[in-house]
């Protein structure tokens, strides 16, 4: 067994040696900046670039590209590559505040920034809508607007009849705000031409989409685009597709004959990249008098942009929380004047769980049952939607183990019944979370050397989640070699086709491919250590190179591998031909509300996760802590403020957008079931990075109810919401 370091890149991270996309500084690089729209909807009637052009050091100002130069990359959710279909600088339409209206390139970042500020525009503004209820916001029924089975509403049995007949009913409506990912690494990259080949260094979770999307936008072959995403300084869904700045940079770089670098400002990342859409979630739950759940109806309004329909997928997960025989979902999309929203960590599951698990808590109170016991009583081994078994489901064990570690038995159930000596209101809450277990096709390349070194190149992006460590560790463990002998290459379109790394499926996808390639080519037994030097020598050379392709269960190999090579989504799950896969978690939360001032603190969280095999214990535990912290932020802190008169976001900086700080974070105990799910893939891993955030909000909300006797329907819950309940 290898003596695994906590992270293979730990030293480089701590010393600052790790390189990010925009760290690249090639010789004679020029710097770009955007001037942006100050209206949210309408037409540009003129852009004044004269002052900018007169500024010393300014090389280029572009306000419009020709259609034969640059086209839309297409929307990632409809067979394209971009976070949205709209490519700025192609026409005179303004679709959201902060949309670029000119690109400036200069010799220094200072000159580029100053020139961008000097650019002014005249507009013909039109009325715009920014919130779900604004006049002019257009509501569509998703199943009609996007008639694709994947986006259909989940329905099982006659939920309305079952609900109407249920002796115990709860009706819960919650609303979730706009939120932004706010990764430390800003969006930005360096674009350069090496002859006819375009080379892009950019922090992205999807270098394959950047490669193929740029090729489409510029009308060149994907073979002539290389994308390198050395390390991503946090993405959380915001960097999962082609950003609209790269195409313009490529053209500017060609015109100038120089590499061009652009890093968006922090406020620009709030306005030029995806974010969590606002949503409203209504859940009606029916139960019998013992608390057995018999019906659930889940209706959603989710914000999207005017130009794209970002599909809502809330009911896919809410229908699977428990063994409820009758379920009806209804997902509506509300068009507003924003850039297209998208996936932000636990995109649908986080807020769906807030609605569902708050409602379940209300059923527990309505039927006088303990919230843990009630959840155990409604657990299921069979997927209520498809009737297929779950490939693995350890919700009950998560709940039992979590309750034990938390000391749940000491809880006094009545709201407001637990207090500290100084009058502090104490609340204990529980909730579960679930997240679809996806898998995708992958191509792995590997070279094994007679020195004992193994190089692995595979689809995947290092976003700080520790994918290099996880892969290195699994390869090392499998082969019985030192972890230091494994070199992992990810995020580079030159070494292997790169699929989107998100939704937790990065690890689950990459590892089976690595394993398959290895075992097949070396002809070694299915398990057990490999003497790498001998095995390579036995092939008669000093080094062997192999490539292997794997697809997820039930995926048509030829189709998905082609999609993979084209940088398109090639994902399967959570429903597979013979089973259904979800990751699960149970969270137990203590809140304390200072009686004097209403300040809410979360001193203690216990989270027990069912993510299949734990690929890398240290990074896995840190994933869960990060997810829990994000859950605390999403519940008690974070909101991107929208002024309905202006649009855009009012607090687009790190000091104003209140992500939690270290002082907000207290004890978080993490435990894992660590049972491999060998149906899903040969390594037995399910996803972890997303599920760990799901249910945190609901557990906090349920704890707040236990502390105060009040239900909080609007996230985030802030001090003014709590003050009336002290």
């Amino acid at each position: 067994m290898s003596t695994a370091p906590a992270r293979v890149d730990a030293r480089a991270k701590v010393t600052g040696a790790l390189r990010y996309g925009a760290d690249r500084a090639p010789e004679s690089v020029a710097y770009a900046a955007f001037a942006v729209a100050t209206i949210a909807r309408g037409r540009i009637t003129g852009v004044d670039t004269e002052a900018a052009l007169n500024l010393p050091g300014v090389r280029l100002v572009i306000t419009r590209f020709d259609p034969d130069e640059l086209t839309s990359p297409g929307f990632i959710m409809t067979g394209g590559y971009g976070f949205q279909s709209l490519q700025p600088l192609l026409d005179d339409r303004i679709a959201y505040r902060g949309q670029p209206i000119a690109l400036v390139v200069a010799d220094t970042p200072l000159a580029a920034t100053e020139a961008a500020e000097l650019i002014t525009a005249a507009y013909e503004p039109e009325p715009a809508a920014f919130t779900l209820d604004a006049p002019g916001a257009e509501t569509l029924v998703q199943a009609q607007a996007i008639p694709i089975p994947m986006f259909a509403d989940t329905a099982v049995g006659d939920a309305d009849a079952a609900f109407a007949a249920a002796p115990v009913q709860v009706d819960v409506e919650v609303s979730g705000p706009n939120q932004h990912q706010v990764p430390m690494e800003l969006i930005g990259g360096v674009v350069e031409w090496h002859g006819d080949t375009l080379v892009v260094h950019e922090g992205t979770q999807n270098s394959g989409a950047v490669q193929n999307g740029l090729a489409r936008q510029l009308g060149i072959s994907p073979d002539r685009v290389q994308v390198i995403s050395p390390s991503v300084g946090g993405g959380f869904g915001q960097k999962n597709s082609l950003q609209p700045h790269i195409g313009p940079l490529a053209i500017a770089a060609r015109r100038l004959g120089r590499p061009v670098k652009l890093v968006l400002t922090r406020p620009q990342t709030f306005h030029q990249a995806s974010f969590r859409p606002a949503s409203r979630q209504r859940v009606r739950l029916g139960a019998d008098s013992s608390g057995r759940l018999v019906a659930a109806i889940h209706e959603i309004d989710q914000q999207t942009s005017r130009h794209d329909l970002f599909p809502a997928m809330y009911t896919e997960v809410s229908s699977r929380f428990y063994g409820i025989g009758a379920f009806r979902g209804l997902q509506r999309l509300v068009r507003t004047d924003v850039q297209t929203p998208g996936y932000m960590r636990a995109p649908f599951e986080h807020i769906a769980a807030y609605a569902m698990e708050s409602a379940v808590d209300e059923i527990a109170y309505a039927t006088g049952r303990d919230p843990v016991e009630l959840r155990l009583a409604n657990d299921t081994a069979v997927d209520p939607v498809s009737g297929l078994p779950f490939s693995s489901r350890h919700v009950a064990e998560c709940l039992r183990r979590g309750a034990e570690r938390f000391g749940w038995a000491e809880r006094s159930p009545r709201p407001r019944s637990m207090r500290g000596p100084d009058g502090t209101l104490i609340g204990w809450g529980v909730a579960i979370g679930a997240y679809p277990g996806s898998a995708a096709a992958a191509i792995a390349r590997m070279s094994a050397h007679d020195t004992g070194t193994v190089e692995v190149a595979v689809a995947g992006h290092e976003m700080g989640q520790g994918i290099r460590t996880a892969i290195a560790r699994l390869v090392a463990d499998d082969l019985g070699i030192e972890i230091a002998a494994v070199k992992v290459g990810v995020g580079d379109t030159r070494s292997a086709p790169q699929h989107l790394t998100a939704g937790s499926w990065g690890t689950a996808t990459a590892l089976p491919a690595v394993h398959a390639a290895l075992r097949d080519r070396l002809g070694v037994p299915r398990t057990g250590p490999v003497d790498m030097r001998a095995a390579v020598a036995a092939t008669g050379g000093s080094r062997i190179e192999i490539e292997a392709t794997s697809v997820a269960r039930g995926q048509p190999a030829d189709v998905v591998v082609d999609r993979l090579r084209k940088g398109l989504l090639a994902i399967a799950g959570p429903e597979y031909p013979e089973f259904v896969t979800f990751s699960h978690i149970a969270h137990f939360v203590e809140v304390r509300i200072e009686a004097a001032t209403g300040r809410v603190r979360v001193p203690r969280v216990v989270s027990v996760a069912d993510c299949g095999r734990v690929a890398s214990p240290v990074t896995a535990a840190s994933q869960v802590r990060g997810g829990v912290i994000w859950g605390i932020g999403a519940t008690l802190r974070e909101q991107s403020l929208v002024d309905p008169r202006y649009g855009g976001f009012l607090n687009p900086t790190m000091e104003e957008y209140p992500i939690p700080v270290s002082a907000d974070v207290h004890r978080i105990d993490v435990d894992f079931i660590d049972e491999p799910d060998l149906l899903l893939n040969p390594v037995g891993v399910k996803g972890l990075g997303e599920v760990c955030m799901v249910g945190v909000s609901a557990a906090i909300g349920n704890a707040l109810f236990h502390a105060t006797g009040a239900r909080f329907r609007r996230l985030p819950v802030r001090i003014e919401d709590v003050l009336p309940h002290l």
Partner: protein
Amino acid sequence: MRSFTYTAPTSVADAVAAIASAGPQARFFAGGTTLFDLMKLGVERPSALVDVSRLGELEVIDTSGDDHLVFGASARMADVAADPVVLRDYPVLAESLWRAASQQLRNMATVAGNLLQRTRCPYFRDELYPCNKRRPGSGCAARDGIDRGSAVLGTGDACSAAFAGDWPVALLALDAVVDVVGPRGERTVTLADLHVEPGDTPDREHSLAPDELIVRIRVPVTPAGRGSTYLKIRDRESYAFALASAAVAVTLTGGGVVEECRIALGGVATRPWRAYAAERAVTGRPLSAETARAAGEAALAGARPGNLNAFKIELGERTVAEALRIAVERAGR
């Protein structure tokens, strides 16, 4: 950000001469943590910066005197917060500093620059919006907008932006003064006279002339420092401005009666706000939950809420009451 000239004078006299000759768009510049931010946002566009952060004579911290604690204008927030006398005898000062900003910012930022920091009203910080403070006469976007952070005390028709700082609130409670040098000589301004309410000229936030340099802050030595606290309530536990804060300092008689009481508020007013009526409500009485609450109510009497900030009234009352409890407990030790 626009180009500007930069000078780093080596004496106070040179600094004053430099600012006078550089014209009305020139600014003193110390840690730059307010000024650079606002320059990047385009809110401040100085033609010249006169760097006073490296004038050794302005970096003095002297807490040994019998009459005053002396803090040079360019002393760093972090250094003052860590001064042993400040830590031991004036928790209200220490807490107001280390509960502000972040350690990195406090390592850069100076105690004089802190006095002249500007509001965090989001509409002030983006040129897109009308703002009477940034562009006099353009209107106020906060009034019918997201005014959750706005003040409820000292508000005006033109502007209700909250004063953002913490340290000036603590200084006000302790009756501090600032010594100022300008082309017309030296003068002393009390903290109470330094900041002004918005009235019809919200762009004018303090009573100093643009060419006047703060050289030091002096805090009268007082036994009330030991019985003091700075309680700050905000949207997260660190690295956020106050929704409501209270600087409280008290002395007690042997019998536990409040002898002397000083209360100032932050986060809820357009300037650092001294709450004399609240002080009177507790002076001469032992502190009980009732007197503490009465003091809180007196402190916020006359508050005028906007759309989203009415909660600041109750929060302010509670903050004053809780700060009184902590201060009295410390005074009794």
